[in-house]
């Protein structure tokens, strides 16, 4: 490429920047893909009709000392060849001002198998997608402490997202313990 051609190639950079991005720029993982990732051996994800009573909702809030901030979760019972494997839950929490959609996979005993960020929309704090940070939740259950700072290390610059995701997981663990057991 000649000097003239090389220098004129720079004009392509702005064009590349405004080129259409793939659909769903903030969607990192689809639910069905997250299900396969969390339970590769499963052959059935059966929707669970989660409709808590006011008493159940209050008991969950009390146990988790956290309120639902972005609606109720959607829950599936997971099984393979008729044998239950655990639960797959899609939930939303508010990061700073936007929803973070995440999927929590729980084993039969109610311990966390994995957590995946499905959608992230905030300007800051996307580091919660980092695999090493998410791995800190593995093995946690309603019977283990789960506090940001003490049990889950914070990410500097992503404090609100870290805190609200930790609150959300603690709430789902209480839900599993009180309603799904």
């Amino acid at each position, binding site marked *: 490429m000649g000097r003239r051609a090389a220098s004129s190639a720079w004009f392509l950079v702005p064009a590349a920047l405004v080129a259409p*991005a793939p659909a769903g720029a903030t969607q990192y993982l689809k639910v069905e893909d997250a299900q396969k990732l969390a339970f590769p051996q499963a052959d059935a994800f059966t929707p669970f009709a989660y409709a808590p009573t006011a008493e159940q909702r209050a008991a969950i809030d009390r146990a988790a000392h956290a309120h639902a901030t972005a609606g109720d979760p959607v829950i599936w019972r997971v099984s393979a060849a008729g044998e239950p494997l655990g639960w797959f839950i899609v939930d939303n929490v508010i990061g700073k*001002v936007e929803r973070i959609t995440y999927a929590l996979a729980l084993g039969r005993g109610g311990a966390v198998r994995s957590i995946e960020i499905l959608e992230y929309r905030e300007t800051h704090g996307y580091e919660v997608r980092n695999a090493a940070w998410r791995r800190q939740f593995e093995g946690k259950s309603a019977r283990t402490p789960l506090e940001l700072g*003490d049990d889950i*290390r*914070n990410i*500097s610059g992503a404090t609100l997202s870290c805190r609200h995701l930790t609150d959300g997981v603690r709430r789902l663990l209480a839900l599993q313990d009180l309603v799904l057991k």
Partner: protein
Amino acid sequence: MKKTLIAALAASTFAAAAHAADPAELERRVDQLSSEIAALKAELARMKAEKAVPAPAAAAPAAIDIARATGEAPKLYEEAEKTTFFGYGELNYYRPTHDTSQTTADAARVVLGFEHRWNDRTRLVTELEWEHAVTSSEDQGESEVEQAYVEYQLNQNLSTKTGLFLIPMGLLNEHHEPTQYYGVARNFVETAIIPTTWREGGLLLHGNLDSGLSWDAGLSTGFDLSKWDATSTEGRESPLGSIHQELQLAKAKDLSALGAINYRGIPGLLVGASLFSGKAGQGTPDFPAPDARVTLWDVHGRWTPGSWDLAALYSRGHISDTAALNVTLVGNPTLVPEDFFGWYVQGAYKLWSRDETSATPFLRYERYNTGSKYATLPAGLTPDALPTEGVWTAGLNFYLNPSVVFKMDYQKFRQDTTRDRFDLGVGYQF
């Protein structure tokens, strides 16, 4: 309508019958009329029955019901436009221990902001700030547009900011809410050396990798050295704070380049570095330092294992080609420094917590010098370097909840001990 239809049909049939002269024909037509009326009655009954049974609801079921019924994903994101408000504030009390007549109480900052999202990848971020409560020609307060930029998400790992944005440097500049730092006032290094809250107008490209590495690269407005006021001590308090432009009719002939890199791949760890550089003469006519260049860089780290929060930062600034300018300023109290720097180390420990409430004492030591070297001037006119100040700060952040913090601290200065002081403050964020 149905009754009108029946009446019209009957009338037309009778009219036709009246014109028929043959009795047999008349009888045939009466029979026809009877059968037509019977058919109409049946039709009417059928229509009435349909009306009595409501049609199935036409409204689309909620996303969650779809998920329950089909096992498919709920609707995970909203397409609609959305505007969200946020804000923070800090109200402080400063009491110098050696001269209590200088004690002040101040609504240091009240900030209101909003984000407007047009669609899944385009949004506006605006932050409006009032400092020191009242802004008028007779008061010391300021009202400022602190941020106003359009963010566009190019793909999942790359975004742009266009407009007035915060410079990605240090630990505080982009995360400067009172709940984010220890002590009533922001640390000296990130106010005197890095002029937090430092923003410029321009274009910033931000990328992040799944490994935990993120980077920024951009082109923006920079400093205006022709603003330097040698008669004031402002340049001695913060060299760059005295010549920043904040996009207030900013001189923009000379643009600056900036870049930053940060790593957060290990939970609890942040290490990073940043660089900002640009000419500051801005083409000002007859300005004696047309080629002066401002360069500022920093390295920083933060480690938060368990209840500990440990941080360290080093920053250094340089302004080139200042000799010709300083020659014209000799005799004034504040000449333009060639070098300035600062660093701090800080440790905090969450000593007590119950539910959302927690108490975190901290200790910080910082050293900084806003004029560690001046350009050499002829005839012994070169100013002496300023002494390096050292400050110990010991205090407590008491979080009523993560969004509301009460603070107290004591600051001990090693050089200028008249500045020793006791501080109280309350801060919030929503």
